[in-house]
């Protein structure tokens, strides 16, 4: 495809998507939908292509040709792993068959459990410990630098109260409705301040991100038009 073709197609499709802003007008509204459906089809195709070419095909080749090995485990192990994976995938496809649930459930359990253990291990070693460590650590200049001390304490206070905000268990008041102690609800309010500030900042950053992308699109439209 020539560069000018690419530019022209991009131009037209960009305008088609931007027609969403005009709302549900007849005809124009359909342009947006058309672009979206084209987009979904193509995304699916690309996902399929890359997934197949970079994972499945190499393994297939590996299985078919015992001379090559793609992993350090050796060709035979690769073959077994691949065949086992094929079997698992096949069984997942059979999930709707009720009489096989005893088998498909067990297979599904393997997939879920391996994924969950990766998530658990990652969350423990990658997020929980480092973040707690840095929250509980004092900077060296804490005693000499008043600002640093205030900031550290604020971060500590904010993190802890915001964590406490999520606390679920509570006691019941005399009428049987969930109620919280005055101190508890005070802490939760402090925590919520930090949470809402964080959400607001993230929201604004997201606006800036999309604004950057919009400027890129408009820049493209103008450069094409010129």
């Amino acid at each position, binding site marked *: 495809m020539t560069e000018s073709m690419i530019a022209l197609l991009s131009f037209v499709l*960009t305008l088609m*998507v*931007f027609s969403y802003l005009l709302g549900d007008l007849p005809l124009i509204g359909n342009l947006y*939908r058309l672009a979206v*459906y*084209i*987009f*979904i*089809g*193509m*995304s699916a195709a*690309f996902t*399929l*292509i890359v*997934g197949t070419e970079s994972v*499945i095909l190499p393994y297939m080749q590996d299985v078919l040709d015992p001379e090559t090995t793609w*992993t350090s*485990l050796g060709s035979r192990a690769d073959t077994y*792993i691949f065949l086992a*994976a094929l079997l698992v995938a096949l069984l*997942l496809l059979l999930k709707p068959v009720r009489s096989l*649930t*005893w088998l498909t*459930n*067990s297979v599904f359990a393997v*997939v*879920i*459990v*391996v*994924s*969950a*253990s990766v*998530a*658990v291990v990652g*969350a*423990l*070693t990658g*997020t*929980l410990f480092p973040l*707690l460590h840095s929250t509980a650590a004092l900077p060296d200049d804490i005693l000499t630098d008043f600002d640093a001390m205030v*900031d550290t304490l604020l*971060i500590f*206070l*904010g*993190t*802890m109260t*915001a*964590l406490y905000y*999520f606390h679920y268990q509570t006691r019941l008041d005399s009428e049987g409705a969930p109620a919280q102690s005055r101190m508890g609800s005070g802490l939760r309010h402090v925590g919520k301040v*930090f949470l*809402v*500030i*964080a959400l607001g900042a*993230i*929201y604004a950053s997201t*606006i*800036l991100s999309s604004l950057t992308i*919009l400027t*890129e699109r408009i820049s*493209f439209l103008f450069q094409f038009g010129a």
Partner: protein
Amino acid sequence: MNFGQRLGIALSAFVAFAVGAIAVTSLLLGDNPAIFNNQPGSERAAELLALPGDVLLRLVVIVISLSVVIGIANLLYVHVGRVARGKVYSGALLASFGVAIFWHLTRQGDPSLLEAVQLPIESSLAALLFVSLVAGASRVMQKRADVWGLLFVAVVVLVLLASVPLAELAPLRAWRDWLMRVPVSAGARAFLLGIAMATVVTGQRVLLGQDRSYRG
């Protein structure tokens, strides 16, 4: 619930528990000889400990990439059905799917279709987000006419203004930097810690064979 079903549940719960214990141990402690006090042979032991996790990981990774096929099948199933009912757009979807596959097979991985179709549409949609986000932010007080809504909007406005390179707004940048460094950082940490803790707890429950998803 009959005996067979009970047996099935017991089986899947057992498989989950066993595989979970192996996977966590292997992933967490594997490949680190220091776990075995670096004694002779600990290298080998560490490798052996890492092996089951390694194999399981590879297996599941392949399963996941194969699962895309299931997804595509679902997509095509839904839209072929719609085309049969005369929906034009689904036809466009199938056509673009076919074109992309055909293009790839005949042109040996020429990525220009991505450049010409996928990229502009996706970028433009991301650009549309700007309008949606601004419109949404301008309605926050409609939904939350309370102090939280106000605080949210104030922070949004502050951060946006601080991104403007005007000399008059320079003090705002200092505020914004402090905001990002202290309260936002604290809030973000709380979110991350909370989610990490919840992930660990829910994950452990799943590892113990206590989840509905593979039990019934």
